[in-house]
């Protein structure tokens, strides 16, 4: 029996090659896309879960609302870890990470600038699950001046030799040399930090300071098994009272009660370790966080994709099945019951699904490298890493096969043999309503995705063409020029004298990409107690002209004024925040420095607001101080400058100036664009999935058009006999599908508008969702639908009516 079913199934597939190809290909693409997205989402959700204690680990963060300025810091003060372990018995372990930036390390004649160096507490490797290949996790970092490194770093410094016990020293000599006391494989990709060198916290003096007035330490706690972190979080206000209060009174002269009375808030919070990757919105963190919303969006797309493919499958199977009414009739006459027929048809769809699954796996193997490349992911389809995959896939085959096969199975098996054999069945006409509904749903999703993609790209275009208040084109950033030490001035002169260069400014502060950042709390006037949080940029006299920032009032900094070291220039937002919408020039601002002495600055100029942060954020108050700093050289080039020639020359000069490091440089416009990588990635992925969805939906439409045309052969014949032209018949057949597509548009537009409006809320500066986006999406989808359907319609319309009417 089963053999007969299989035989019939394969013969049917073979006989209806067109249908089979559409069916299997559509389903395979649907399954492949769904699986790739599932791998992606699974990877996003897996962050930090490799830690054995992940489910009871939290990170402490700090939140404040001081004089209306909100802050949310992923780091806390040095004593927090130790204090919490001492004060709260439910805290089993506490450990800290201090990101140490980019120190330059030396071993023998090898030296490298490391960008993944951190000081960590001695219990770090007992808290995080990063097994040591060499060394002892419990003792490796107890001593000062010890370091645990990854295998890759060991190889870089020591080649194939043994790393243990070797001494790595700091180029700048500020820190003592470190002895390698442990080697780990590497930090997993799905970790929220990616350090390569872990030095012992004991070698970092700042870690022992008892200050509660600044925060630089990422602090993690391991809680007792089954302890709810919310309960601990509720106790944290005491910490503020008990420890920050006295220190605040000592340095700022106000009590915590007074501070709070003014409406200020300071608080500690806890964040589960596994939430760090997807639920963080800190100004800075150990790695670029993911976004849970994207995980949701992509999961939805995966589900839709699979649904669309199943709908196609169902639609096409039902359509094709009506051709087999005779077979059903004969089988019934020969004694087959309804049950056997249902079994037979379900078996067929399950066989097809299985074929599609195999094809889908092949597609994934081919597409995954491309996807990884486009989306900068590192996904693999690996059955050993995902042992659940095989049962999940088998279940998928059965479920999809059943979903797709059930309707045709139950529909066909209910045919009455006599009617079938007398070909009285108006085959499939009844189910047209259901199938139209399914087509509407498919196109609803397609249009939704098209509109979303267009909105994302429109916003990216807006970002690229937005007037930023500074000129990002033809600006070369020579990075880390401070490394040249005393030679930097000569190097700067040589750059400035190059005929291709318009101007040069030295500053570590760059409006796009990696930049220094320095909060600056100041008061308007000399005696005000009002404190306003601003951002301070240390710049020279060429900064404003080099970046093409517009000076609205007053003057630029100048070396001719001996007093400019206490002059500042404000942006419009700062002037407004201080209450000087007009006439800010000549006013003074003041602040208490770290030693508690008052510093007074006088405002010499006001510049137009420029976007020194991403367009996600409103422009905030900015104070520029005249404090030449050689962090980077910002170089404005002539519009026709020969850039490769210049960079070659600069690299040579750089080496001549005595640097062992190669010159690193970047272009301001590229740095700017890189700020929006997440959005670009989103746009790209949406675009790809929109394309795939449309493709699969069109396969379905094509099949349905083919089926409908076949259904209506006789009608088309009659109409042609009565004088209908090919164009008229084509139009008639296409029109019905266009109506479906239009209904989809009407349904999809408001949903798309709502969703994308929400997405755009993330940008303080955004492009409007204008009517043309909808118009364009509508036109695109209609054209695609017309193209898909008209092929079948024309074919049907061209057919000789004699043949269609002869089938009596």
């Amino acid at each position, binding site marked *: 029996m089963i053999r007969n079913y299989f035989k019939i199934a394969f013969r049917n597939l073979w006989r209806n090659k067109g249908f089979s190809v559409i069916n299997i290909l559509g389903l395979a693409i649907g399954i492949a896309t769904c699986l790739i997205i599932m791998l992606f989402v699974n990877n996003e959700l897996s962050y930090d879960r490799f830690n054995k204690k992940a489910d009871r680990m939290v990170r402490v963060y700090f939140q404040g609302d001081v004089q209306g300025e909100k802050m949310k810091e992923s780091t806390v003060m040095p004593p927090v870890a130790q204090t919490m372990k001492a004060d709260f018995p439910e805290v089993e372990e506490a450990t800290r990470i201090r990101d140490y930036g980019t120190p330059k390390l030396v071993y023998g004649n090898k030296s490298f600038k490391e960008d993944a160096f951190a000081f960590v507490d001695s219990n770090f490797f007992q808290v995080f699950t990063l097994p040591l290949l060499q060394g002892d996790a419990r003792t490796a970092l107890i001593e000062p001046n010890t370091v645990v490194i990854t295998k890759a770093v060991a190889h870089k410094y020591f080649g194939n030799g043994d790393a243990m016990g070797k001494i790595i020293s700091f180029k700048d000599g500020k820190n003592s040399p470190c002895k390698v006391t442990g080697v780990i494989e590497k930090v997993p990709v799905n970790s929220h930090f990616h350090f390569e060198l872990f030095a012992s916290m004991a070698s970092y003096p700042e870690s022992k300071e008892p200050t509660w007035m600044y925060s630089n330490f990422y602090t993690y706690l391991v809680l007792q098994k089954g302890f709810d972190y919310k309960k601990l979080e509720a106790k944290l206000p005491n910490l503020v009272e008990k420890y920050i209060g006295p220190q605040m009174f000592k340095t700022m002269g106000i009590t915590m009660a007074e501070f709070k009375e003014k409406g200020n808030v300071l608080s500690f919070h806890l964040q589960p370790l596994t939430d760090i990757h997807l639920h963080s919105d800190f100004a800075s963190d150990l790695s670029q966080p993911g976004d849970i919303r994207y995980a949701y969006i992509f999961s939805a797309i995966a589900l839709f994709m699979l649904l669309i493919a199943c709908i196609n499958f169902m639609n096409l199977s039902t359509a094709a099945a009506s051709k087999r009414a005779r077979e059903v009739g004969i089988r019934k006459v020969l004694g087959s019951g309804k049950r056997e027929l249902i079994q037979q048809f379900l078996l067929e769809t399950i066989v097809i699904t299985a074929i599609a699954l195999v094809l889908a796996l092949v597609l994934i193997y081919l597409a995954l490298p491309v996807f990884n490349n486009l989306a900068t992911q590192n996904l693999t389809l690996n059955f050993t890493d995902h042992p659940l995959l095989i049962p999940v896939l088998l279940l998928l085959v059965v479920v999809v096969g059943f979903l797709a096969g059930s309707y045709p199975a139950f529909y066909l098996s209910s045919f009455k043999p006599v009617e079938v054999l007398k070909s009285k069945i108006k085959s499939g006409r009844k189910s047209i309503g259901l199938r139209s509904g399914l087509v509407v749903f498919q196109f609803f999703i397609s249009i939704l995705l098209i509109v979303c993609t267009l909105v994302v790209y429109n916003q990216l275009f807006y970002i690229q063409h937005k007037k930023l208040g500074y000129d990002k084109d033809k600006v070369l950033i020579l990075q880390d020029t401070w490394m040249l030490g005393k030679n930097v001035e000569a190097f700067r002169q040589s750059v400035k004298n190059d005929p291709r260069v318009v101007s040069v400014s030295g500053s570590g502060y760059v409006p796009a990409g990696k930049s220094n950042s320095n909060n600056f709390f100041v008061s308007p006037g000399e005696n005000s107690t009002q404190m306003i949080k601003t951002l301070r940029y240390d710049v020279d006299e060429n900064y404003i002209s080099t970046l093409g920032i517009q000076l609205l009032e007053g003057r630029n900094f100048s070396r001719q004024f001996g007093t400019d070291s206490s002059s500042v220039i404000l942006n419009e937002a700062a002037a407004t925040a201080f209450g000087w919408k007009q006439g800010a020039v000549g006013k003074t601002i003041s602040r208490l420095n770290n030693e508690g002495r008052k510093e007074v600055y006088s405002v010499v100029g006001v510049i137009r607001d420029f976007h020194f942060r991403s367009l996600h954020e409103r422009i905030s108050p900015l104070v520029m101080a005249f404090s030449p700093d050689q962090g980077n050289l910002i170089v404005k080039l002539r519009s026709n400058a020969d850039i490769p020639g210049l960079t070659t020359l600069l690299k040579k000069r750089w080496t001549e100036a005595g640097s062992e490091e190669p010159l690193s440089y970047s272009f301001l416009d590229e740095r700017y664009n890189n700020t929006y990588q997440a959005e670009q990635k989103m746009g790209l992925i949406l675009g790809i999935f929109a394309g795939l969805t449309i493709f699969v939906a069109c396969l379905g439409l094509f099949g349905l058009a083919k089926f409908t045309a076949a259904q209506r052969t006789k*009608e088309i014949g*009659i*109409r*042609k*006999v*009565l*004088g209908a032209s090919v164009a008229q018949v084509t139009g008639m057949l296409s029109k019905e599908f266009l109506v479906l597509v239009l209904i989809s548009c009407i349904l999809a537009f408001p949903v798309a508008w709502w969703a994308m409006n929400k997405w755009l809320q993330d940008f303080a500066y955004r492009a409007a969702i204008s009517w043309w986006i909808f118009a364009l999406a509508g036109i695109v989808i209609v054209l695609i639908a017309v193209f898909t359907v008209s092929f079948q319609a024309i074919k049907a319309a061209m057919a000789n009516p004699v043949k269609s*009417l002869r089938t*009596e």
Partner: protein
Amino acid sequence: MIKIKDLEKIYRTEEVETIALNKLSMEVKEGEFVAVMGPSGCGKSTLLNILGLLDDSDNGSFIFNGVEVGKFNERKRAEMRKHNIGFVFQSFNLIDELTVYENVELPLIYTGVKTADRKAKVEAVLDKMKIMHRRNHYPQQLSGGQQQRVAVARAVVNNPKLILADEPTGNLDSSNGNEVMELLTDLNEQGTTIIMVTHSEHDARFSHRIIRMLDGQTVTENILV
């Protein structure tokens, strides 16, 4: 009106060659009522399709109204067909999704008659066929005889010069069949040329002339009037 000389039509499949019309010649004058008879497979339907400009011939000449139409392309044939020829089929071939009125209206739409004129014409012909009261019904709601009356109405609504009827009574009982035959006779008396394929000697007797076919050729002609 119709002059056919040495008409040939051969159907080819991969292995078999079937000669449907074998150098067939015949002539039909304007206002005639001709019945074509013969056993199954003798080429009657093929002849009717070629006469109706639904199909083309492989060889020979076909002059319709003084014009050689044998070599017309499909578009020209369609143009000629919709203005000059009406069809009545054995199985009525009404469109199930359209009402009686809409079915009859179709040929007028395709010949580009204005809406207002269409209404007058359709109503006139429905009246004449005595199915006005059924104008808003769907074909399935009608009896066979009524359905064939609708089909005849549809065939004549455009005032064609020629009506081609393919076994018009084949699916009807005898009383309904007679009714349809009388309708056709009336139309013929009003000047419409009719060519009818039939198996029924009874029906054939309504015509002026019977052409008998065998193996793609005419074998005899009986003139009845």
